């Protein structure tokens, strides 16, 4: 009797161990999906400043985001360990006079989009505590687009405390993928036992 159940007990233990052994925390990918109204003007780089409980915005506390032309998006990689300390975020746009069309904002970790923001909510008055160098910030709720007119005078927006914490507070420990892999392995093994085991080669 013991022998009969031993493989199942071992499999269950392996599953639980796999599930509960802590993996490292994944970084956060904060992405802004943006196109320039004039493609020629779109420069390569955006900058994300961050403030912590002990220090405010400074040149030392920046994360650079590259503009990916193929996907129309800027990606900032926020280190998982750093994310716990961040209290405020400031998005610095390129020093160009241009109109940026922002049509999606996401925060993902471990390969899964954890938060998706409507640009009209993201750049609404309650979520922006300060701004500079912008000559326009038009929200078009009907199309969920935010149009931001930037000048060459260090344009930026400072996000509110709540929104900043919301963006950085989604670091993943790969729990979903671990459950998916376990469930998938379980299903396949079960079908193997029930049907394929006695198949001829």
């Amino acid at each position, binding site marked *: 009797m013991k022998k009969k159940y031993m493989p199942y007990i071992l499999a269950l233990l392996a599953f639980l161990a796999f599930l509960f052994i802590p993996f490292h925390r994944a970084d956060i990918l904060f992405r802004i999906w943006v196109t320039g109204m004039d493609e020629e003007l779109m420069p390569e780089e955006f900058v994300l400043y961050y403030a912590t409980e002990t220090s405010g915005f400074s040149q030392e506390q920046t994360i650079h985001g590259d503009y990916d032309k193929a996907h129309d998006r800027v990606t900032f990689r926020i280190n998982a360990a750093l994310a716990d300390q961040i209290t405020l975020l400031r998005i610095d746009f390129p020093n160009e006079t241009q109109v940026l069309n922002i049509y999606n904002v*996401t925060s993902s970790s471990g390969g899964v989009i954890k938060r998706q923001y409507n640009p009209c909510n993201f750049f609404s008055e309650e979520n922006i505590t300060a701004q500079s160098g912008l000559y326009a910030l038009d929200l078009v709720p009907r199309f969920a687009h935010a149009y931001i007119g930037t000048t060459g005078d260090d344009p930026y927006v400072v996000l509110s405390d709540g929104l900043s914490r919301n963006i950085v507070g989604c670091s993943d420990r790969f729990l979903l993928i671990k459950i998916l892999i376990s469930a998938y392995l379980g299903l*396949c093994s079960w079908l193997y036992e029930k049907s394929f085991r006695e198949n001829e080669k």
Partner: protein
Amino acid sequence: MKKTKNDFLIMFSFGFLLMALVYFDVINSLKYYLSDYNGHTYVYLPHFFSKEYFWEGWKAVPYCMWHFTALFFYKILRIPLEVSAAYSACVYALFSYLVFYWILQKIALHREIDDGCVKLSLLSFCLCIVQPLSFYWVDVYSFSMNPLYNPTYMCVRGFSLLCFCLAYDILCYQKNPEHKGIFFKVENGLKKHYVYLAVLLFLSVLAKPTFAEMFIPAAAFFMLTEWMMRIGRKDGSAGTYFKHCLNMLLCAVPALAYAFVQFFAYFLLGGSYGQGGSLIITGFLEVWKIHADNVALSLLLSLLFPLFMILADPRYFTESEEGKLSIFCFGIGFLEAAFLGESGQKLADCDFVWPMMSAMLILFLLSTVRLNVLENSQNRSKWHNLAYACGWFLFAAHAFSGVLYFINSITAEY
């Protein structure tokens, strides 16, 4: 199993549908300046128009079969450039489709399965378009077994499948001389089949060297393993098998020679877009992680169906010759993807992931073939039916992703 007029009609209807989808896909993607078709059509192809720039063009794309086909339509038949590019993509899409159909038909004949023309056509069509699963909430890039956006990969696809089938028959005959051949009749010896394999491998390298980069080392490891096991058995068969290994190596020589010439032209003569890149050994999965934060999820989305078959029916993939060869292919392809890259700006281009993508297609093909064979076997309990349903559901999900790919690609506005 003779084909009737209706069978041909059905077979070519699916082929025509595939060609139509590919045609509109190519025509639309040519408008996008960052697409592969745009680069190959407007940047590389014009190099071959005149003798003056021919050498420069060849250095940049020494794997120029697709370009010469497009050139044939453009220069000889005087068809507009964009349409020539689309037509040459259609030619190779149809070629792959017919090869898939031929493989499925040969296996059905061998296993005495009475599969109708509709089923074979539909499966072949689906195998031509299957894509990784995609969900809006997933933020990882999954490498495709059918990168339809790349003209040269689409060009090599048919040749790669033929090489695999021919190598399978040769390897089986070398192991057991009573093997008559499923795809090619090998009962009267292997001499001409070695020549066929050499030619097919060479053509695959001429189309794109990435399949050979994976397949030649995989076949070599496969044969070396068998040779070592024979040495261990001490039954005197190791010597004969070693001669087979040498014969197979000779088959690979033309392909290897041209691959080295390509490598030389590309990396040393400045063909690599003039960016002076070179082959480098990277950290484990370094290149992959540029595009996918979660490699396990990326792989799972690409190979959900083949992984299901490998895990649910592991004996087929560990004991049959074709199953073992496909696992060797994927293993080598994965290692190349995990450890190789191009230096400099081109690191993110993932140029050494292509071999793994070819191996993924072989896994897809064998998983489909295996599921079809099992479904037609005598075992039809409720558990078997459930397993077959799960398998076909996953296969259909990949095929549906392929349909979505075409819809998105054809309707995209640039």
